[in-house]
């Protein structure tokens, strides 16, 4: 954790433009959870010029659909879902003012361009670490769309939630750089 960059949303432009691909960050404070269906509803509201259920400007959206909380816990398992499915909505959400999203997997060029244009970042948490990441969530409540079940809009309080900068506000991409490097190295090995 030493050396990790600490972030406490809401985040300013300056908070994220200092971040570069590969930086390790720790998020503390409020983080919102939303995936496919909640995004569809929120982008419909934005397109109609109506306010979102909560003000997400400067905030961080975690692409997640947790398992139900067993008795005595605030949440069940809660790792990131595949971000690419949210690419249909992400440029609009960044334009609105969302400062960072957290998911797994890579993003398409329109999202990478939106990050540069709107001074925002895409972070990854390690996919499949549902049990581990749930330990960093200290409270969880549904703030909108309860009818969507796990796909509702969630508000979490997190402590030292670990993530890695995958796409920064300068257009760099951790996946492309990492895979190109290692494909070259591994091709050379007998």
């Amino acid at each position: 954790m030493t050396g990790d960059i600490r972030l406490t949303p809401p985040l300013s432009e300056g908070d994220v433009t200092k971040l570069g691909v590969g930086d390790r960050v720790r998020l503390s404070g409020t983080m919102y959870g939303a995936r496919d269906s909640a995004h569809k509803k929120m982008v419909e509201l934005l397109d109609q010029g109506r306010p979102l259920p909560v003000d997400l400007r400067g905030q961080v959206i975690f692409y997640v659909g947790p398992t139900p909380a067993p008795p005595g816990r605030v949440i069940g398992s809660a790792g990131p879902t595949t971000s690419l499915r949210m690419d249909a909505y992400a440029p609009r959400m960044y334009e609105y003012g969302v400062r960072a999203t957290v998911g797994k997997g890579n993003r398409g060029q329109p999202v990478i361009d939106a990050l540069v244009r709107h001074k925002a970042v895409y972070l990854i948490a390690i996919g499949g670490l549902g049990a581990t990441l749930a330990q960093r969530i200290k409270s969880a409540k549904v703030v909108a769309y309860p009818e969507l079940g796990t796909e509702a809009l969630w508000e979490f309080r997190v402590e030292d939630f670990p993530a890695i900068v995958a796409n920064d506000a300068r257009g760099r991409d951790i996946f492309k750089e990492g895979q190109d490097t290692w494909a070259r190295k591994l091709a050379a090995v007998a």
Partner: protein
Amino acid sequence: MRVVSVDKVRETVRDLYKEACVIANPELVQAFENARATEPSPVGKEILTMLIENVELAKRENLPMCQDTGIAIVFLEIGEEVRFDRPGLVDGVHAGVREAWKEAYLRASIVKDPLRRGNTGDNTPAMVHVDFVPGDKVKIRVGAKGTGAENMSKMKILSPSAGVEGVKQFLLETVKAAGPNACPPLVLGVGIGGNFEEVTLLAKRALYRDLGKPHPDAYYADLEKEWLDAVNRLGVGPQGLGGRATALALHIETKPCHIGALPVAVNIDCHAHRHKEAIL
């Protein structure tokens, strides 16, 4: 005829899922450890350590290892000398899934209509596949499959002229395109032969073979080794951040096919490779 109780099937399906989503099979943990030992990328090594710690934590805390507890896939191999004590076998399987999801606090991830959506609330229906086999036993194999990996799976009917190289290229293109989105290190099920619908089922059956157990035919066992090595030179690596461990295992299943076709399917599973089986 041997009589098997439908309720016993229901209870078995329930108990297998409650365990599968929470407790990793020992051979999966071993595969993580083997991958870590040979992973040259420091970040990749670090991620593999996190995966090992996560499955240990899930077991200790009785939490699902991954929040995507998946779509329920159930294979029933029914001995021809078995008679069930009452009708409703497939409903019994669905009931077992429903009970597991409720009792183990697993995530309801199924919508009742593909276009109009709407969560069914209990993860049913399961995808049930029934085979009749010789004997008087019922073998139940269950898989819980996250969709991040399922979404990146592909099938194609190649021309026979494409041959073994064509199948290999299709496999490598599919894994490369899946990249980080299928949650590598992956488990790969490759179906070859059959026809349009059979080849995808072959790939799924291949996926749920005991992890890393080679094909009984030496020709295919060699291909499994060669193709796994080729996959692990793509550079995708753990979580797609670059490295060797793109896949933990690759299994091939085949069937005879038409003289004019070479069907191939690649079914991808994430590192949260969850399956269990029981024999009644």
